[in-house]
């Protein structure tokens, strides 16, 4: 659906994107990760036909961003990192404005606006001024706006930035719903745990260079992040730790609170040997919990902790 090949963007001496190559399949939810100034927004602007690359090619749905910008604009919904709103319009007028801008037939507008307001839970705020909405609601309105012309591709630049925890959860659920609707989504965020839950693939970019792009599983593999298991023993935590440290399948064994936390080697997928070994030595197991791998760990490993 989205193809970027050797795209470079320079602002004077600054290289914002350095030969970026990326492929995102149809229906994929792609999490774009990187520190501030890494080139995430620049990539999105190129795809939204707002910025021309210094060199390289990019296409959306097989259409060239340089030559077929008009068709691409109808295919995409772009939400910038800072949502500049028309403060003198109501929510309804704001959405009508963009529906008209996308030449949506007048008779269909009402139905479409009702639909997106319902989806974003803004029906109650329909006649309120956009500027009077809270930050979270404005972000949701931003999502409603990008959906007004039913685009196949959504480019969402930091949609959850500045939101409180409740609004973040709402935003995440909304994006999951959009993913289930079959939209191709590129979403950038600093909150990595959220991307972990809703993205099927990720890309990590730093200083204009793409460090990684692929599925989450690939990311964990490449980052050498093995499975983690927390084990609670009735007594003899130190002895249990020493025992597991001897096993070469365990990469790292630590004690967190009263749990023995075992980090397995990346290629090790089974965990039953831990139980067998401990029980064989007479330990009484009180708890055995597989811990989620963290995207933060992947990010730090892949960027080698050098992110500024």
């Amino acid at each position, binding site marked *: 659906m989205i193809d970027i090949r050797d795209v470079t963007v320079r602002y004077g001496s600054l290289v914002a994107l350095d030969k970026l190559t990326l492929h995102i399949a149809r229906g994929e939810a792609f999490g774009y990760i990187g520190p501030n100034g890494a080139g995430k927004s620049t990539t999105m602007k190129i795809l939204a036909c707002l910025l021309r690359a210094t060199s390289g090619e990019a296409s959306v749905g097989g259409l060239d961003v340089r030559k077929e910008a*008009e068709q691409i604009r109808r295919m995409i919904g*772009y939400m910038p990192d800072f949502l500049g709103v028309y*403060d003198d319009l109501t*929510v309804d007028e704001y959405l009508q*404005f963009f529906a*008209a801008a996308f030449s949506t037939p007048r008779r269909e507008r009402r139905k479409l606006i009702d639909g997106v307001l319902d989806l974003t839970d803004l029906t109650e705020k329909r006649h309120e001024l956009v500027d009077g909405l809270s930050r979270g609601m404005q972000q949701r309105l931003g999502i409603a706006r990008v959906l007004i012309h039913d685009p196949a591709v959504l480019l969402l630049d930091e949609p959850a930035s500045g939101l409180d925890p409740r609004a973040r959860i709402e935003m995440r659920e909304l994006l999951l719903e959009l993913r289930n609707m079959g939209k191709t989504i590129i979403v950038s965020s600093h909150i990595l745990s959220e991307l972990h839950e809703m993205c099927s693939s990720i890309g990590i970019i730093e200083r204009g260079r793409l460090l990684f792009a692929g599925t989450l599983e690939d990311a964990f593999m490449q980052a050498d992040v093995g499975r983690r298991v927390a084990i609670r023993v009735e007594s003899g935590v130190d002895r249990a730790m020493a025992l597991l440290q001897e096993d070469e399948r365990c990469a790292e064994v630590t004690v967190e609170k009263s749990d023995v936390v075992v980090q397995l080697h990346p290629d090790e997928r089974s965990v039953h040997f831990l139980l067998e070994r401990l029980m064989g030595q007479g330990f009484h197991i009180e708890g055995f919990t597989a811990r989620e791998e963290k995207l933060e760990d992947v990010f730090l490993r892949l960027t080698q902790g050098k992110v500024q």
Partner: protein
Amino acid sequence: MSRIGILTRLCPPGSLRRSVVKFVNPLHTFFGPIFQKEMATMSRRRGTYGIRLLYALIMVGIVSLFYLGTVVEGAFSSSAAESIQERARIAPTLAIVIGWIQFILLTLAGPLLTANAICDEKTRRTLPSLATTPLHATQIIFGKLASRMYTVVLLVALSIPLLLFLRVYGGLQAQVIVAFAALTLGSSTLAASIAIMYSVWHRRPWSVIIITALTLGLVYAAPPVTFGIISIYWPGAGMFAFMEAGFLCPPMVLIILTAQAQGESFPLQLDLDLMVTLSVVYMFTAALLIGIFASFMLRRVMLAEAGGWKAGRGSPMPTSRGGRKSKAGRRRSRHVWDAPVLWRETHQPLFGGGWSRWVIGIIVLLAVAAIYARVAWVGAFDDQAFHITIAVIFLILHLIISSVATTHVIAAERDARSLDVLLATPLSATRIIMGKYIGGLWRVGLIPAFLFLHTIAFAMFGYLRPATVYQVGMILLGATVFQTGLGLFFSVACRSAMRASIANLVTGFFAWIATPILFALLVAITDRFFWDLEESLFAKLLLAVNPVWMVVGTMDGAISRSTQPYEYPFEDASIIGYCAWLTISAFLLSGAGLLGVSGATLRLARQSGRVVF
């Protein structure tokens, strides 16, 4: 509770003393952290140096022109005495022209420099952050005012050596030069303080500029109008009032100063030095008081903005300390047209919130009604002066409003960071630009409509020639299309709305005011040695495209004197010839304006990689 009691509660004695001591300390109030921050920011902008350089070049250019003229004159003149005599004739005029250009330009520059001072803080939502600092509101207002006036002081200081240089050829006395500089500084500071006051409770800088221009017009026009009214009923009292309170109108003081500098005798015995001093003191005192009032309002606005109140909406000022949110719930959504950009532009108010529209509307209506009532009372509907005054006042007002009406349309979207969203739609560049342009024309239509109706009404009743309707229409068409078209171009080309407004106002100033004056000066310098510039086609064209000049000519010839021909730009022009001239000038100006619109369209298309149509 007594007043002292309330004061003590609001501000404990120790705190009050500290506040007063801090306030009277200029280092604290004027040159505090805000001043330093503004100066640091300004020093990083290339535009700051660009403006100063441009100004210096213009001033040096004028003086160089004069010097060149004297050199050429020296080569051609028969005797040295004749040459010196000629220089002495021109030098005072040149100094006065520079002084007047400087006065008008810097009086306009004051509001341009300060109009965005607080508006920008609102747009960036930094006011609540400022409210949490120990900075006093006076520090914010006067710090911003002082930093911006620094530029004006520099520009005035720049011209003083040039004016003093002209003294070599017999220019103005040093005392007169200082008086010009002081009046210019005072006027600019007063205008800037009015603008900063309005910027406290407006969201948009261009609204601030327009309202400041109207207010300044009223402030400067009120004293002479009052003296005039008093003179009608009590002639002696009117003269007395003028002598005692004439300093309240700085342009009038400048006119008297100019007359005296040119050696013209004035019928009244005036102490001009005292008048100038009082005028300068009045302007700086007024600016100080306005600044204090603005500071008081700013504190409330800062707290109110933090509480959700929005400037320019609902009530003019927050009603409680914490402010309150606008009554959005009572609003009903309107129906958006198929041309959304045009719809939005036609629904944008020119003056911001509803209350200010009403206030300004009522003041203007009352003033206009008073003029009409007075003219009707004395039966002077066929008086040229009446029609010329109405036409010139409303035309100048229209030109100022047109200069800023379209400059924000793209640049402000860039400022508010909503442009990317608009450009992500498939709207073509032409649809965006034309929507913005027609919307801009719609917004500025009120004053031309009034002037047009005035002409139609008086033509219908036989006071004006019927052809005047067409002539006024042509003048308005050309000037409006030109000024708004260029404004739109600047809006696309400039990074911020303020820069675009400044660029367009400066263009308008040079096109309508400075160029004819400079041309006249050029004629005065060269008329004896070069070709007859005054009678050249260039001169005719320069005047024919000047709306103020032409509207005076139109109204001059509009009174039903069927045998008298029009005088401008050709002498003894027939009605048909005059109408033809106006048509040509309207086409030329409209063409230039539409060129600006086309430039804006192409530039936007190129910037955003979209199709033109």
